[in-house]
């Protein structure tokens, strides 16, 4: 290998690194902006040139303190402090949806993967075909159905329409197709009932796919704005996206408070991401499962 060749490879590598780092800057800058802007007032956020470090004079002024924006963000539009209520609502909805999605998808996926029964293919195709029905196309009838069922403006109303996902069933089925049947038969010989086999053998041995699916479903609900907009009109039922959009509408020009609100609302997701990043990045497992 001559020197010129090595030089060419090095130059190429440097360019690749510069490009990758530039994209990192593009991706991270808005998040950094959110962090620093949540400590600033509007004048500073709109200052030209933008100063990335909040100035000292700002903190020392008598009317504002270090946490003014955060206090505003938590107080909300009418000083009714529903931020924490919204946070708890979001957590309840997202966690419940994650749990029900995992449980029922696994149950159904197990039934489809490991049992032979009449109409199995039909059941599978029927469930798969619902993936073609986007929520956005059925939100109007769902709104009417929820009114009819009397779950409008209740927590169950926020949860039930998203309690199971067809994609989850698909993923669980693909995963469980490769689950060793001898394992199941051995448990049957040991006298374990079918439902107990599912509960004690199948579920505990599917943790990677459960974690991935659970996180996916948690995130979808954490991010959901449209359905809560239709279903949760009461203040005390608002979820975080709804709270933020209401706050943004009212405080259009109070950028600092808005950024503080956005920042606070993102903390739970950041914590989840940095502790379970393996499963977030594993969300791409759709390709792995396709081969099953």
């Amino acid at each position, binding site marked *: 290998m001559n020197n010129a060749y090595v030089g060419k490879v090095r130059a190429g590598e440097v360019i690749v690194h510069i490009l990758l780092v530039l994209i990192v800057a593009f991706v991270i800058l808005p998040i950094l902006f959110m962090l620093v802007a949540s400590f600033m007032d509007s004048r500073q956020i709109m200052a030209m040139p933008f100063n990335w470090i909040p100035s000292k004079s700002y903190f020392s002024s008598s009317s504002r303190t270090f946490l003014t924006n955060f206090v505003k963000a938590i107080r909300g539009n009418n000083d009714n402090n529903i931020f924490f209520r919204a946070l708890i609502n979001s957590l309840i909805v997202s966690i419940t949806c994650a749990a029900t999605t995992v449980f029922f998808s696994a149950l159904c996926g197990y039934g489809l993967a490991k049992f032979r029964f009449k109409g199995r293919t039909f059941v599978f195709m029927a469930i798969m075909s619902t993936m073609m029905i986007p929520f956005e196309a059925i939100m109007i009838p769902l709104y009417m159905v929820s009114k009819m069922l009397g779950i409008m403006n209740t927590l169950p109303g926020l949860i039930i329409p998203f309690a199971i996902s067809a994609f989850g069933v698909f993923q669980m089925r693909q995963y469980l197709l490769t689950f060793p049947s001898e394992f199941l038969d051995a448990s049957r010989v040991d006298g374990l009932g079918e439902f107990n086999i599912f509960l004690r053998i199948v579920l505990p041995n599917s943790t990677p796919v459960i974690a991935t699916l659970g996180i996916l479903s948690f995130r979808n609900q954490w991010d959901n704005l449209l359905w809560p907009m239709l279903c949760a009109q009461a203040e005390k039922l608002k979820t975080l996206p709804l709270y933020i959009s209401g706050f943004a509408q009212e405080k259009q020009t109070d950028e600092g408070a808005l950024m503080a609100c956005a920042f606070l609302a993102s903390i739970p997701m950041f914590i989840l991401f940095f502790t379970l990043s393996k499963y977030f990045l594993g969300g791409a497992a759709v*390709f792995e499962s396709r081969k099953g």
Partner: protein
Amino acid sequence: MKSKVKTYSIERKQARYGFAFTLPCLLFFGFFSFYPIINAFITSLTNRKAVGKTWNFVGFDNYAYLFTQSNGGFSLLNSLKATGLFTLGCFIPMVVIALLLSVLIMQLRKPWQKKFFELSYYIPAVLSSVVAATIWRIMFQPTGLINQLSNWVMFTSGRDYKWLTDNGMLVASTIIVYFWKYIGYFTILFITGLASIPPTIYEAAIVDGSSRWHTFWKITLPLLKPTVMLVSIMAMLQCLKTFSTQYMFVIGGTARKPIDVITMNIFYTGITNGYLGRASAMSIVLFVIMLVFTYLQFAAQKGGEDVEY
């Protein structure tokens, strides 16, 4: 003979369990997917409104209305245009750049570098769309950060690029928000696809003296084609359903018309203005569009299974 009968009955019993396990899902989807879509179609044939108890069947009047009338200044045709523009402007650059980034990341030698870039690129996908749109709307303000950066990059000074006030720029702004949020997600999808190509193929190519560029075009891309197809259609379907970004921009004070995507129009027509029949007709239009693309996705997926390494 006896034992055969017994196994048969055990299998029957097991089969019953299998069906029972799928029953909750079947009931759920019957009630929350199939019934609503049928209901949406039926409602789209009526003049039903949110207020008022009675309504009549009007045939396809709602569809005729939507395709010919202005719907109070926010017509369906405008929404189709806005959705189409957003989708095309978003998913093509997203897929191309995600593919490029994934190939570049896969070439890195040190695992910690791979991990670093994967994690950083993924971070925006963790934020909710509402937060993403709020951050960017503030940065797009006339004296905000983006105008300052644009001036720096374009060697202009003090120019307002009208990110939120010019119609075309407004569409571009929503695309940038979406691109920013999902680029990492799709990069990771491609990385997973690339990781499934056996390294022995690359080793063989290197032994044969193939250059990197040549390897990419002749080996990586053809093997990745099913993944590219699948990711493209996934990205496209996701763009077609966009709502939060546009909605947050509108309530933040921008014009609605250039970014009045179809989901937003359904929301305003059906929920805000209460024309349930008309909104249902729009929903069916959206459903049909997505159905066509989903069909393409399944076709692409099927094609993917034919590839043998």
